[in-house]
């Protein structure tokens, strides 16, 4: 079978059921085949999953936050609501900022749904305010003093060998008991 035939075969699309979740892996693969990239990305897959039970009740636990959103960079082009995909706004190393103030985080460097959402309300991708409410009500013990920003990369090795260990180290320094991770 030639490459062309493979491509034609691969982009036959079965209609989705609107009540099922979007199949992003399949959609993305088909999209890139359609625009001419015929080497599908191999998404991370593991058979085994680690599991660590909570060591104490949430009301006594310190919660860490991991986000893939990026701090606003005033020297770069548009990162505001509805901005087109902006690769220049990507970050490439783990960063941390205080949770003592509301940060200004943007998602213009991310392939979020730009048709049906406009990225106007940071609280839809960064849960600090609602965790603060949970802390105030005693639902959780506290919020870690710093949150972590995880750079998105196609390199799974970079994430697992460099970025994830850095976030672990940060959370150990801040005595994090459990973590809430929010992708975009």
């Amino acid at each position: 079978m030639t490459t062309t035939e493979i491509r034609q075969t691969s982009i036959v699309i079965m209609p989705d059921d609107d009540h099922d979740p979007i199949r992003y892996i399949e959609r993305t693969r088909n999209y890139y085949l359609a625009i001419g990239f015929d080497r599908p990305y191999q998404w991370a897959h593991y058979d085994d999953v680690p599991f660590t039970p909570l060591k104490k009740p949430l009301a006594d636990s310190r919660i860490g936050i991991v986000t893939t959103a990026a701090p606003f960079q005033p020297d770069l082009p548009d990162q505001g609501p509805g901005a087109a995909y902006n690769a220049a706004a990507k970050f490439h190393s783990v960063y941390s900022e205080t949770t003592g103030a509301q940060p200004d985080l943007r998602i213009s460097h991310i392939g979020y749904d730009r048709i049906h959402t406009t990225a106007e309300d940071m609280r839809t991708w960064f849960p600090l305010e609602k965790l603060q409410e949970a802390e105030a009500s005693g639902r959780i013990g506290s919020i870690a003093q710093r949150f972590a920003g995880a750079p998105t990369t196609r390199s799974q090795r970079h994430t697992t060998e460099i970025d994830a260990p850095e976030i672990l180290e940060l959370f150990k320094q801040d005595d994090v008991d459990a973590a809430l991770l929010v992708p975009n």
Partner: protein
Amino acid sequence: MCHQTVSLVARHLEANGIPTVVAGCARDIVEHCGVPRFLFSDFPLGNSCGKPSDDESQRETVERALRVLESAVDGRTTVQSPLRWSDDPSWKRDFSRFDNLTPEELERRRTSFNDQKSVAKARAAEC
């Protein structure tokens, strides 16, 4: 990539003694990777913590994530939020749609993708 990235980070934290929950909108990517705990909201990407300007939806989403964190008994626990983005599910048809694009538009997107990759590479080299 976002969902894969945090899934990999969650696995690493968990393997090193920190319990985690991922709150996200791309169910297949997270479950394909395999994470300990996952709250899935069937919303457009970019809204993992609830709907825009909807305080109650955001509060409920974070509270549900906390409940998954404290109640899961084993890895690969997925809980799907009962919240709906809209009564009209047609928003799901638009993501990465290409069947309505002309050959010229497909070529433009290919060029644009390559350009963005170059920009990201150049920025990575600067950092």
